[in-house]
């Protein structure tokens, strides 16, 4: 399990820079990042070194922020690695809202952040199927 920080951004020049500046000044490291955008707005998703603090400093800077539960899954860093994980999830009818890559590795594995509909179910399936995922504290320290 891990906490993702989500931020609502208008599609205006300088908004992303502002978020990263606010985090930088608070000494918070960005560990993974993805932006989903439309013509009007974007949703920035972040994995950071200190989610609680990031939430607070962004809120203080008057951004609309929320915390979302996600899972950091270890994926073999080889061709077909992600496919095999996804296939096992699909077999179990685990629906995925979105996913994005983490900027770092765990041993030989790549890391992928998953937002799933049912997080408890995901955990159970991962344990049964031998899919490795990271606990929160390990993830933020990577």
């Amino acid at each position, binding site marked *: 399990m891990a906490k993702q920080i989500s931020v*609502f951004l208008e599609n205006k020049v300088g908004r992303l820079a502002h978020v990263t500046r606010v985090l930088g000044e608070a000494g918070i490291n960005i560990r993974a990042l993805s932006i*989903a955008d*439309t013509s009007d*707005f974007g949703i920035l998703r972040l994995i950071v070194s200190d989610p609680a603090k990031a939430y607070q400093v962004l809120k203080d800077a008057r951004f609309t922020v929320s915390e979302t539960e996600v899972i950091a899954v270890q994926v073999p860093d080889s061709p077909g690695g992600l496919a095999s994980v996804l296939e096992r999830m699909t077999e179990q009818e685990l629906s995925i809202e979105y996913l994005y890559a983490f900027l770092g590795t765990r041993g030989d594995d790549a890391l992928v952040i998953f937002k799933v509909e049912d997080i408890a179910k995901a955990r159970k399936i991962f344990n049964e199927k031998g899919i490795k995922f990271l606990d929160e504290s390990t993830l933020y320290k990577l």
Partner: protein
Amino acid sequence: MNYWDKEKECMPREYLEKLQLRRLQETIYRVYAFVPAYREKMEALGVKPEDIRRLEDLKLLPFTTKQDLRDNYPFGLFAVPMSEVVRIHSSSGTTGKPTVVGYTSKDIDTWAELMARSLYSAGASRYSVIQNSYGYGLFTGGLGAHYGAEKIGASVIPTSGGNTKRQIMLMQDFGTNILTCTPSYALFMHEVMQEMGIKPSDLKLKAGVFGAEPWSENMRREIEGKLEIDAYDIYGLSEIIGPGVAIECPRKNGLHIAEDHFIPEIIDPETCEVLPEGTPGELVLTTVTKEALPIIRYRTRDLSTLNRSVCECGRTHARMAKVLGRSDDMVIIRGVNVFPSMVESVLLNIPGVEPHYLLVVDRRGNLDELEVYVEVSESVFSDEVRKMERLGLQIGKELESALGIAVRVRLVEPKTLERSEGKAKRVIDKRNI
């Protein structure tokens, strides 16, 4: 029930109308004699003061508009010599000349009486601490409320607008019971209170008297819920006297117009015909006690209805419905009249959506387009694009069914829409018509 002046406020209609007629006749003789502009208008219509024999004869008289005040800038409509004028207020005059209004010392006293009635109706007494956050200065709100509060004998904190954090600190430290300001500023104060970590239970605030801009029933619910107070609507305009022309009673079912000082009518804004009681239209007001600046049949541009039945509160003075909008704010888009207040009502009915919005009207090719900017608060924010897009579509659909025209919704970051400390700007019209 609290009345500041029971004899006047609960006067049987029969007597009230006799009083109105006598005062109206006296006013007409006076303007005919002392204000050339009124005499010329009356002569053009062939009306003489003695033609006003009954209250219904009011409809024979000419209308007065804001333009008349501009045309006679600055003191042309005053009915007394300047030696009798003790106060001058003025509108901001963003387009062309400002409008100027004057008061004799008796006018100031009348105004204070009306504001005392209004604040009393909202529960004020000599034991109240009243924080007056209407702007002091040329704008009539600040000084008008101030004099009324002092007349009651309440303790007034003349904070004026602005410096919101300090206002809230004083509100807490001084134990403010009643707040007077614009409704949008009340909501802004609540936002700042949240940022400061101050809860309504930390305050002694019981009621607010809010005016100077139209606000909806939904906005009342929002203010009352967030600040945990009773919110009363007060109506007034500087051309007539300032705030205190009409005030809600605890029934909150229309605003009692001080009919011993003003005669209300509702007209069709297109044909100018007087409409029957209960029909919505433009409010027209005539002053019958003003000395310095008597105003005959002033077209307020505010849309409302009148109800002359006796209120459950015991007051006999006619009630005007909460103003539905100003025809100045009204934008006509593809032939449809759109009021910002309608947008506000829709937004307040969608759970979690804040009533902070901006209407942007533009013309693409030959087609007018309405875009509504809506702030995304934390309570409706989702990390999934799909859900956010669905929210935008839902708001758009509800706006379309309420307004009757296509609306494009743009979701924006909170607090990006201009939140002035006075009146909130709700419409940007980019069309070059």
